[in-house]
């Protein structure tokens, strides 16, 4: 097992009190496996990713029962040890490529710097690796491209460079936070295809943070659905999409406009808004928006086994098909 996280909690101190941004999230990823963490904005998925890399903002505190990378306890690591891990065995790709690239340096220099920060390698070796990876991510004229500055490249090109940069040190695990959301659809598909091809050929583990259920359905081995700081459902991808069990997962799947819906007819949508995480809620977080809610849902609810690694945080899992309301 590459990374193992048990009962991760993240609290954020705000002016109005403590916000329980992530509550008891557990997951693990093995080599070559893709885990997708899916949810809407504010559900805690991005901050979960940041915490894995030790990049939480100062106001956030992290606790976890276990958090190991390749068997080593990440919570005991010093800042220097974490830095040695980041960009090396554990890499990240963010949504906006310009946040990962320094506008003042050529991409060649940035690629080489990453490699030589973690490896005892000559410039020549580093350069060869950079050229090899730029070619791998589909950049033509790799040798000349090394001398380009980030602003001389298009958005799609930049994200390719970021992917190449993330792969420089042959990472074992990649954490990607919405890596293609900012790009055009055809480039999005092309880059995703590239990313998973590279993942397969290098045998890397991947944690993909996204809100795009279409994307999840196509690349995930395992899926975690998060809502308001909690895992509401976790399952192998094929089970999640054939038998979505939590009302939130179903509602989310139902509200994606796609050819299965009758055209120009109202889509099922989720009424209401996400609850504030400032006041710790006892019962189900989806209570106020759920068509099935009852008084029993006000008690604390644990993840319920559905069978075969499939769990959902809902006491009504067994109760037949859930009808979704259509609201404007």
């Amino acid at each position, binding site marked *: 097992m590459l990374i193992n996280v048990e009962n991760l909690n993240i609290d954020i101190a705000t002016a109005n009190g403590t916000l329980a941004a992530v509550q008891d999230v557990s997951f693990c990823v093995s080599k070559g496996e893709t885990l997708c963490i899916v949810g*809407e904005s504010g559900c805690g998925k991005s901050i979960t990713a940041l915490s894995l890399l030790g990049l939480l903002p100062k106001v956030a505190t992290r606790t976890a029962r276990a958090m190991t990378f390749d068997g080593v306890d990440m919570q005991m690591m010093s800042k220097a040890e974490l830095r040695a891990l980041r960009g090396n065995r554990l890499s990240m790709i963010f949504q906006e490529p310009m946040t990962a690239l320094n506008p003042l340096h050529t991409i060649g220099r940035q690629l080489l710097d990453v490699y030589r920060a973690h490896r005892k390698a000559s410039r020549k070796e580093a350069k060869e690796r950079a050229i090899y990876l730029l070619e791998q991510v589909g950049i033509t004229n790799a040798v000349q491209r090394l001398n380009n500055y980030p602003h001389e490249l298009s*958005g799609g090109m930049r994200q390719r460079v970021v992917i190449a940069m993330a792969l420089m040190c042959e990472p074992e695990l990649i954490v990607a936070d919405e890596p293609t959301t900012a790009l*055009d*659809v055809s480039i999005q*598909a092309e880059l995703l295809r590239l990313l*998973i091809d590279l993942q397969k050929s290098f045998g890397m583990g991947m944690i993909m943070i996204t809100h795009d259920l*279409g994307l999840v359905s196509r690349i995930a081995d395992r899926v975690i659905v998060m809502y308001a700081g909690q895992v509401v459902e976790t399952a192998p991808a094929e089970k999640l999409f054939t038998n979505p069990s939590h009302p939130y997962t179903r509602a989310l799947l139902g509200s994606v406009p*796609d050819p299965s819906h009758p*055209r120009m007819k109202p*889509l099922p949508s989720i009424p209401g808004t996400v609850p504030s995480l400032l006041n710790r809620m006892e019962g189900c977080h989806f209570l106020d928006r759920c068509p099935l809610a009852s008084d029993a849902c006000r008690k604390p609810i644990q993840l319920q086994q559905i069978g075969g690694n499939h769990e959902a945080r809902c006491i009504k899992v067994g109760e037949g098909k859930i009808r979704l309301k259509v609201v404007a």
Partner: protein
Amino acid sequence: MTDKPVLELSNVSHEYRGRRGIFGQSAPMLAVDKVSLRVERGDILGIVGESGSGKSTLAKIMLGLLTPTEGEVLLDGRPAGSMTRRQIAERIGFIFQDPYSSLNPRQTVGKIVAYPLYLRGEGTSAQRQERARKILDIVGLPLRFFEAYPNQMSGGQRQRVAIARALITRPKLLICDEPTSALDVSVQAQVLNLLLELREEFNLMYIMISHNMGVIQHMTTRVAVMYLGRIVEMNTSKRIFEEPRHPYTQLLLNSTLTVAQGAGVPDLKVDTAKREAMREHPSFIAS
């Protein structure tokens, strides 16, 4: 009522002049290249294309923010160039992509929505407020938001405010530029449902500009596909999605990741030759 199309573009082109600098003038860029289209009663026209396809420039031309370098824009059969901004605004409303920057953070929701009426000098202050309340109710915002500021609201609620502001002057046509791309999926469904409902209620026509093929397929009657400033394919929505003719339309449809477990990500193999072929391929314009 006349049966003239509400909006008609004939052979509209727009060229961005190159910047004049010390090294002389850089090459001009043709952002929109001989575009003709018309929006008629009952239409929801989708315009799809990627960044740089010219769809935002086209939207600016339709709104009268840009004067095309060539061609003509007709509103209700009259040239838009001869109309005042107010006359255009009475016919066309606009909804921006980002509900966070399209609302003035220093004005209350009530003021924002009533402002277009104030600009027209319609009614007394009390009457304008009354109409603002009514329209906020129609777009599904509770009255308690009337005195709220935009930063006290969620993205979906803000987009409802933007829709209310666009509708208060009763335009016939609403141009929506990526109206839901800044919103979460579940909220997106709410806003799309609202747009469909309003269409019935106000007899509205829409132009939906989007790169989300799922939204376009769900929401439109006709679709125009733009590539490098040109409309490369235009047809009824049904036919575009069932039998796309132009290779670029096919590429767009293939690259859309619909929910399909286990289908994987398609290998599009877009190379220079294919791009060249898409550029050279003749347009297919029906309807």
